[in-house]
Every structure is written in C-alpha cells, then in structure tokens.
C-alpha cells in the first residue's frame, strides 16, 4: 500500500543551518494493515505524515502509494488532523461531503456514503448541526467521517486524539478499530502515546529524534480484535517496555 525508501527531509532554519527532520527513512505498509508511528516531539513523525499526505515536499527519496509514486495530494488518501479543523459555516454533513465536493459534482452515491460513514462514527441525527454545537470528541468523529467519505484506500491520522481527555480517547480508540474493521482501510496513525500506539497497531514504527529516523519496527502479537483488558496482558507490556527502552537510552522520554 505504501512504499517509502531513502526518504530525507531537511529544513532550512532562519540562520541558514540545516535541520535533518527525516534521515533515510524506509518502510512498507501492506494493504489493510494498521500502522502506528510513535516517537517523542521532534522525531519527524508529523513531517513523515505530511509528506505521505502530499502537503509537504520531500528533500530526497521516493514515496509511492497504491503502486503510484506520489508528488502532491491525491485521492487515494484521507487525512485526519490533530485538531478536527471543521469549517464552522458548514453543517456536519456538508463538512463530511466537502472532499467529494472538491473532486466534482455531488451525486446520490456520495450522499449515501456520507450517511453510511456518519452512522459508522456514531453521529446519526447530527447531520444538520454546526461544528460549534459539538463536543471535541464529536468534532473529531466528523473529521474521521470526512476523511473516509471520498472512499480513499489509505487513512492518515496525525495525533487525532491528542486533544481529547483520557476517557474519550479510549472510547475513540475502540471506535477507530471498529471503523477500520468495517471499512477495511489501511491506516497509518501518528501518536506520542506509547500505549495508544501499541493498542491500535498491527505494527509499530518507533522513531527517534535528531535526526528523525526509524529506530525500530515492532509487530504487536495480539489478536486483531482488541479489548481494553489486553492493555494489562503480557505481550502488550513487552512491546511497551521495548519501545520505552529506545527513548530511555536517548534520554528523551516524552510520554
């Protein structure tokens, strides 16, 4: 689904120094996989996601999605941002339909799909509300439905639940796994919470900062259907411990 090889990204600072945000990043994601990228602030995980989404230019290397090299935003991808970023003058349903609207004229197919995803994120009956009338968690649900509605194969999520309280976050994690199972999409989710990364993922990509690079890739040895109790299980704890060890050795523990 995603193939990344030799990816580099350098930023120019105001003083003219170069900052290596990403250094020789390479990985591959299979169709239908749930991948999480975890790392402390400044490890380049958001940069990586923005390059995959096509909103940031890479310095060198190659990225291809669904077999096609990408050089800019494309229809195969749905993006969920850190903040929900809903347009406050559009109703919930209008926000969800916005990406489809950008691609061309809306048809009944789009509307049906919007209804389907609205139901999937648990917001039936809210289609004509405005974002200002919704809680933070509900707004992010709209953000997820919006990312899915033009039927992309890949869902990119940039710390989507970072702004939510812990209880809502757990709830959203479970719902996201259900939505993934129902929709069959490939998901790449960036987070700085180690337990969240392990709980959601089939595989966890661990990144370390300065320069941002992949430190480890870990398969999570748990059944695909996750339950909250698994957080206390042994395989879960083993992966979490292993991820922590990377950050402790660098002296940068962020969560």
């Amino acid at each position, binding site marked *: 689904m995603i193939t990344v090889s030799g990816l580099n990204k350098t930023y120019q600072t105001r003083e003219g120094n170069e900052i290596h945000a990403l250094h020789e990043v390479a990985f591959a994601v299979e169709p239908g996989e749930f991948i999480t990228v975890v790392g402390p602030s400044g490890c380049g995980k958001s940069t990586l996601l923005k390059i995959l989404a096509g909103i940031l230019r890479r310095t060198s290397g190659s990225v291809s999605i669904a077999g096609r090299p990408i050089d800019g*935003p494309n229809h195969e991808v749905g*993006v969920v941002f850190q903040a929900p970023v809903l347009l406050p*003058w559009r109703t919930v349903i209008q926000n969800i339909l916005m990406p489809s609207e950008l691609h061309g004229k809306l048809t009944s197919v789009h509307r049906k799909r919007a209804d389907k995803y609205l139901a999937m994120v648990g917001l039936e009956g809210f289609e004509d509300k405005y974002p*200002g009338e919704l809680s933070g968690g509900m707004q992010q649900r709209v953000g997820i439905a919006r990312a899915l509605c033009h039927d992309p194969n890949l869902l990119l999520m940039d710390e989507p639940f970072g702004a939510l309280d812990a209880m809502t976050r757990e709830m959203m994690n479970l719902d996201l796994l259900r939505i993934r199972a129902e929709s069959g999409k490939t998901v790449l989710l960036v987070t700085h919470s180690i337990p969240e990364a392990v709980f959601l993922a089939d595989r966890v990509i661990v990144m370390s900062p300065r320069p941002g690079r992949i430190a480890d890739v870990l398969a999570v040895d748990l059944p695909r259907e996750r339950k909250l109790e698994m957080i206390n299980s042994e395989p879960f704890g083993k992966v979490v411990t292993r991820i922590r060890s990377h950050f402790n050795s660098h002296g940068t523990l962020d969560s």
Partner: protein
Amino acid sequence: MSTSIEQATRIDGVRDKSPGKHSDHLMSAALLVVILGAWEFGVRYFNVSTLIVPTPSATFVSLIQGCADGSLISNLGVTFYETMAGFFAGAGLGLILGGIIGQSAYAEKIFYPYVIAFQTVPKVAIAPLIVIWFGYGVTSKIVITATIAFFPVLANTIVGLRSAPREQIDLLVAFTGSKWQIFRYVKIPNALPYIFVGLDVAIVLAVIGAIVGEFVGSQAGLGYLILQRNFSMDTAGVFAILLILSLMGVGLHWVMQAIKKKVVFWVNHDADHVSGA
C-alpha cells in the same frame, strides 16, 4: 420562598438577560427625556435667541412641517439615493480590488502604493474637482461617496482574506483542493467578518460623503437644504435635518448589523462571556 428562587435566577445571570436589556433601553430613553427637558428649559430660561439654538419643540415643529410640505422627504430621497449608490459603487470596487490584492502579493506590490497615496488625499479637498468633472447633479455626489466608502472595504477585505488559518488551507490542500477552491471554501468565509466591519464603517461614511458633495455644489438633497436654511437663519430647520441625518445613519448601521448576523452566523457573539471584573 418564591423571592429566594427569584434571587437565585438573577444571580446566575442567565435568566436575567432579557429584562436587563429592557431596562437598558428604558434608561437610554430616560436620559434622552432629561437632556431634551434641560435643553428646552435652558433655552427658554436664559432667553437664548432661536437663531443660535432652537428649542427641541421648535425643532420638532419644523420636522413635522418639513414632512408635511414634502421638502424634507424629497430631499431625503435624493441624499439617500446618493448614499446608497455611492456605497454600492465604492464597496463593490473595494471588494473586487481587495479580492485581487488579498490573493496575490504581486498585485499588492503594484496597486497598493497608489491606493494608499489616493487614500491620503482628503476626499473633501477633491470634492470641488469632482463636481467640476461630473456636474452639479447626483453623479458627482455618488462619485464622492464612492471614493470615501471604498477604502474601509478594501483594507478589511485584504486583511480578511489573509486571516484564513493555515490548518484550514492545509485541509483543502490535503483533499486536493485547487487555488480557486481554497479561495471559495476557506478564504472568503474567513474574510466575511472583516468585510462586514468594513461595510459598516463605509455605510456610515457614505452619508457624510453625500452631504459633503451637496455642500460643494448641488440643486437638491439634505446637504443642499441645510445650506439654504442656514442662509435664511432657519436654525430649527437645520436641526430638524441633522436629526433626520443621524436617524438615517443609525438606521443603515442597524440594517448592516442585521445582515451581518444572518450571514456570519457562525461567529460567536461574545454576549454571554464575562469580559472583565
């Protein structure tokens, strides 16, 4: 028992909102009555010449007379027409040019210095020229009004178009939105609250523009009537016109606020928030 409940609702401040507004209006009206009363009494008591300051009652009589014989109404019609036509022309131009400049830094570099240079010239100073160019009829007044209404709309449109949050633009980019779609879906809606501030300033200034134009040279309009009545020492008549002018300004401002509330419905009107202690 019932009084304690009443006090409780008053303290939490939510139920209190509408009666509070009501009493505000009452106070405002009471203030007007007191001022008018003091004015009437003062003029009569100190025996001030009505050529200098007329009493409120004399002003009111003149207002009724002017309405009855049609002189106020017909001249108000002319001034109102000039105000509106000038406002639409100036605001329209401000929106279009503001749209272009707000979209492109290149256009800003080319146009904006001249716009600023034009804005620094006092419109009152060029009003006589405009009357020479466009004649003594309504056209010259519309042009003067338009030049005054233009700038606030232009400046606010530019600022508004640039106020769009980066995340919203990124969102459109990520979903393959074109430059034009970003303009339509994100930049224009974000600019609207600013544009309405500009329009509100412009419509009030437009009234001034029309009157200034009429002062310079005209055959009709409230400004023309003010000059005429001034020459014939009809001070009460001038006051009556001033009253009408301010009513017109306030009325137009209200209409603009009402339209703004309808169009920019998603903006929080901070009425429910405490703004300081």
